[in-house]
């Protein structure tokens, strides 16, 4: 754009971004504070990050969170991709609309209700709450996000590619594995990262599904803050912001690149 932005546009942009990011900037800023008092600046220091490394409780919680994140997002990606495949490729079958609606329902379901119902389920079947139940819970709610991402990719997928694979001797599973999956991989990775990020910062559902032995980082932070904000928490939160931001940026870069390349290929396909 050649035109420089008007005074009004600059102001609204600044206000908007300030509204969105000022709280986080303050948090990140104070995580480098030398003072133990959160709101009093006493010079730059990274000591709280060092301190964090010696806090066993936080480290344990971080380890739990990481394991839950990897396991639940992997499970959610597998299930979500399968669901997306059936919805896009399954053709018409009895109850298809109901099924696809039900897959997307958890997107808008209040988390408290999802958490509570899972809790009731775990109690009903006598499952001890721990890491495993958190993984199950996170898989449940992040699966629909994966299936949204993957099904939107599958909808633009040229069906004749799969038919060509079948025609050349692939079994349906082989066709999926050697043709469909490699082509939709960017979408699947995006889905995984999205699920991982969601699992990383979930508090509500995790607090319903977790047991005394398995505390995730968000739960730990939440309970620590109730005793007072410490610079250590600021440091920890800064790290989490970093991880989530990396995940989100990677996701958007992957999908943007994939879309651009796909467009380019389509363009070259029509123009000879």
């Amino acid at each position, binding site marked *: 754009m050649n035109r420089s932005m008007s005074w009004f546009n600059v102001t609204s942009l600044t206000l908007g971004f300030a509204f969105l990011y000022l709280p986080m900037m303050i948090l990140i800023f104070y995580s480098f504070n030398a003072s133990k008092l959160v709101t009093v600046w006493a010079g730059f220091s990274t000591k709280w990050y060092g301190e964090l490394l010696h806090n066993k409780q936080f480290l344990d919680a971080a380890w739990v969170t990481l394991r839950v994140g990897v396991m639940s997002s992997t499970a959610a990606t597998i299930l979500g991709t399968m669901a997306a495949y059936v919805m896009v490729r399954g053709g018409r079958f009895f109850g298809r609309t109901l099924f696809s609606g039900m897959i997307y329902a958890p997107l808008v379901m209040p988390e408290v209700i999802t958490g509570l119902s899972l809790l009731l389920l775990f109690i009903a079947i006598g499952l001890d709450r721990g890491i495993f139940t958190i993984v199950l819970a996170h898989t449940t709610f992040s699966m629909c996000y994966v299936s949204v991402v993957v099904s939107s990719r599958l909808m633009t997928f*040229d069906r*004749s*590619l799969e*038919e*060509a*694979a*079948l*025609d*050349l*001797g*692939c*079994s349906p599973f*082989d066709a999926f594995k050697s*043709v469909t999956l*490699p*082509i939709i991989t960017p979408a699947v990775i995006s889905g995984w990262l999205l699920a991982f990020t969601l699992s990383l910062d979930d508090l509500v559902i995790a607090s319903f599904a977790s047991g005394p032995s398995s505390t995730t980082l968000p739960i730990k932070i939440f309970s620590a803050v109730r005793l007072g904000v410490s610079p250590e928490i600021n440091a920890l939160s800064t790290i989490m912001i970093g991880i989530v931001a990396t995940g989100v940026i990677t996701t958007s870069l992957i999908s943007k690149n994939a879309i651009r390349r796909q467009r*380019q*290929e389509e363009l*070259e*396909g*029509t*123009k*000879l």
Partner: protein
Amino acid sequence: MAEANPQKVFAPWEDPNQAPLIRFEGVTKKFGTFTAVDDLNLDIYRGEFFALLGPSGCGKTTLMRMLAGFEDPTMGKIWLDDVDVAPIPPNRRPVNMMFQSYALFPHLTVWDNIAFGLKRSDMPKDKIGDRVQEMLRLTRLEQFAKRKPHQISGGQRQRVALARSLAKAPKLLLLDEPLGALDKKLRQETQFELMDIQEKTGTTFVIVTHDQEEAMTVATRVAVMDHGKLVQVATPAGIYETPNSVYVADFIGEVNIIEGAAAPTGDGKVDIAFAEGAEPIHATIGEPVTAGQKVFFAIRPEKIHVGREPDPTRANRIRGKVHDIAYLGNISTYRVELETGQMISAQMTNARRLSRRDFTWEDEVWLSWTDTAGVVLTR
């Protein structure tokens, strides 16, 4: 030409001892209430280059997809080499297909695309390389083996698709509008290439197209389809010269259709009264007609001679006025208005230079044609 030696002509459909490679037996395909293919019977022989021709929605693609195994017939049977193919899934059929979109795998190189089917066959690993090389040579793609599909041109992609579908040496190759995405010049070159490759490999080809010129060029036989039914199955010359219906005559090339009442005059001739007060058209009949029956006289523009004077050697001579001239370089098409109001197209080759052309707009001319130049159709 091959016609000079009748024993050499490839016409297995005329030989009652030949067993067809493909046999459609009362095949019907319905999608919901829509009937895409309607009780169709058809034999296709080994070594043929068979064209399914028709407008979009006539069922030709459905017919092909049933051969490939992507659709199941609602009724009837399809035999391939005397085997009922109904229970065989697409990946087990000795049939390969070249897709309209080419359907090249974008994540694989040209080499891997061609090797894709071979790797899934029982061909030993060390033979695959040779076979791929052979296919690359056949389609002149050797130097593109390492490229990905988006790094080559449309014509090259078309050849990769062909190489990939031929690699497994299928009994039958299906081509779904294979040249649709190419521009005209490339399409014509590719048509000859296709014929060449078909001849070299001896594979039976079935091509689906809506382009009548393409079907005429490549095919040994053409099946004209409409609304899920075969209207006519014949050689390109047969389809063009002796169409069996107005639909076929009109679909293939240009044609003048004149409606009239038949008056048989014996020994296979008929007079067709097409307008009050006009001399009837003298023509030869293919099928018997009764006196007074409504018939259609179909005649190609190039069969009509345009002249200043009536040609006494031709049975039909009608006077008209030049309404329009389309000069196409090698030929000119004249649209001539008869005194009875009908508009007739006639074509003359431009043997002379333009400056010495005989007629111009509004000139009075005589249209002449022999009594065997056109066909008499009853439907």
